[in-house]
């Protein structure tokens, strides 16, 4: 049997007396877009941070393309092809927007994959173009609005040309119009192809989101977390009808 693209087994993380993820196990395929939902404090962000290497698990393992990445450094994981964005945006505020993206373009992975690109700035510009904020490339990141900061986060992650993209609330704080635009960008990215000097592998994605209506449109499968446990795993249609999910998170009524 072929190796799963990403395989998480028995992942456990405690913060003092609080269990953030409790023996979480799942696997995903190369072309999947996976939604990760659940109430606040369910352990979604912790799970994503464990995969991206920002946090170290107490137990369990993570395998990416058959390789164990459980205790690898964050930058090694990014250079293997897993990029992530932050729920609370973390731009380099005093640097111009283009320099924010250039840092990602200067990572070993991006440099190796774009060695035919003469100037790092050009590649960074294409990432900004993709995210739709290239017209503000020279402004300081501190001047950006909430929506544009989300776009900058995506541009930074995309610039490393990942194969797996972990998006933590990409629609958070965005207006309905901005949310639609972001959803379209994400769908376009998943299709793959070339954006100027930037190449998209059509990354698999794990998306944490509370705006379920938009999420349902772009994901193939949803995992529901509650108190660190997986309470449901299935297609969007199966999830909305799951009584346990309705009780723990969705409630009655329309999404």
């Amino acid at each position, binding site marked *: 049997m072929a190796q799963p693209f990403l395989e998480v087994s028995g992942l456990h993380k405690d913060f003092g007396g609080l269990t953030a993820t409790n023996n979480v196990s799942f696997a995903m395929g190369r072309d999947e877009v996976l939604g990760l939902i659940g109430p606040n404090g369910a352990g979604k962000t912790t799970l994503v941070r464990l995969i991206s290497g920002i946090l170290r698990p107490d137990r369990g393992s993570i395998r990416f393309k058959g390789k164990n990445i459980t205790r690898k450094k964050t930058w090694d994981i990014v250079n293997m092809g897993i990029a992530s964005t932050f729920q609370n945006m973390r731009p380099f505020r005093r640097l111009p927007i283009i320099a924010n993206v*250039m840092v990602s373009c200067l*990572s070993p992975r991006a440099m190796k994959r774009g060695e035919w690109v003469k100037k790092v700035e050009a590649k960074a510009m294409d990432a900004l173009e993709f995210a739709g904020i290239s017209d503000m490339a*020279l402004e300081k990141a501190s001047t950006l609005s909430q929506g544009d900061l989300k776009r900058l986060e995506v541009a930074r992650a995309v610039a490393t040309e990942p194969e797996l993209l972990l998006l933590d609330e990409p629609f958070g704080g965005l207006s309905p119009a901005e949310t639609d635009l972001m959803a379209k960008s994400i769908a376009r990215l998943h299709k793959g192809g070339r954006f100027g000097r930037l190449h998209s592998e059509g990354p698999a994605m794990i998306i944490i989101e509370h705006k379920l209506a938009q999420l349902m449109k772009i994901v193939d499968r949803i995992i529901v977390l509650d108190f660190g446990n997986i309470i449901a795993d299935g297609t969007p249609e199966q999830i909305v009808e799951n009584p346990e999910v309705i009780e723990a998170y969705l409630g009655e009524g329309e999404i």
Partner: protein
Amino acid sequence: MGLLGVYFRRTVTILRSEVLVLPSRIAVLVFIVALMALPLFTQDYYFLRVLILTSIFAIFAASWDLLSGFTGQMNFGHALFFGVAAYVTALLNLKLGLPPYFSIPLGAVGGVLTGLVVGIPCLRLKGSYLALTTLAFPIILTGLVFAIPDVTGGELGLAGLSRLTGSRVMDYYLTSGLMVILGFAMWKITDSKTGIILHAIREDELAVRTSGVNTTRYKLLAFCMSGFFAGVAGGLYAHFMRLAGPSGLEVGLSFQVIIWAVFGGMVTIYGPIAGVFILYPLMEVLRVALDSFPGLPEMRMFIFAALVLLTLLFMPEGLIPWVRDKVEIECPRCKVRNAFNRKRCRVCDAVLD
């Protein structure tokens, strides 16, 4: 002749299009020309001595800015690099008889190794924890210096190093020339791709890691580069003073460099250099001026502190960025800096407010 003509024309073009268009660059040019021409007008022994020490400390202050200003690794024990390099230089000169042009670079290598020794345990530390840990290193080394007086000369230090060059004027040209070259090199580093990553580490280290950049490597690089430049300053100081002693490791020197850098303007490289060129000679002027009044010479530290505090109260970013913002304006469109009297941007022709 043809080749010389090409270089001459190229120099004139760069001067006209890159240097003479901005007040700050004109100021740097005037400063360098004045520095180089000064011995033609005076060769006063004491005056040159003050300027030689100023140049040495300017290299030292800029090296602090490279590590603490640009990379955000707050170093409260920067004298360590200076002191270690001074001792290494002195030992190489006295024990092995190496001349200054060998002992100073090797002393700077000592500074690089010290950067590694300090950098590795400090990798996980931030903010005040980092500052306090770095503060401890020179204090520990001072204890070591006193513990092995046979090697380090103990309290008296190692004296009798060979002279830097044969004459005071040559000493002056060597130190001021090195200050200009090394200052430019540090500025180029901060302006490079490595510089962008160092900047970003100061802003948010975790975000740099999730961008796929090995921050450990870059932080150690910053420690080593800063150690190298501070080491050159330490080696020059040892040969010029013909002495390497525990005073080079003093806490006072570590704080002095922070005052110079903060006064001149952090995160600029040229700010700390200007800070030293204003404050160091000023202390000498105050000392001479107050010497004739009984009881007043002790007041010079008070006057110095008051001056620095007042400057920072009105210019929180430091003196040089404040002056630069007065004489230059940023183009709202292409972000290029322009002289304050221009109506339109020199690059994109946008209207300047």
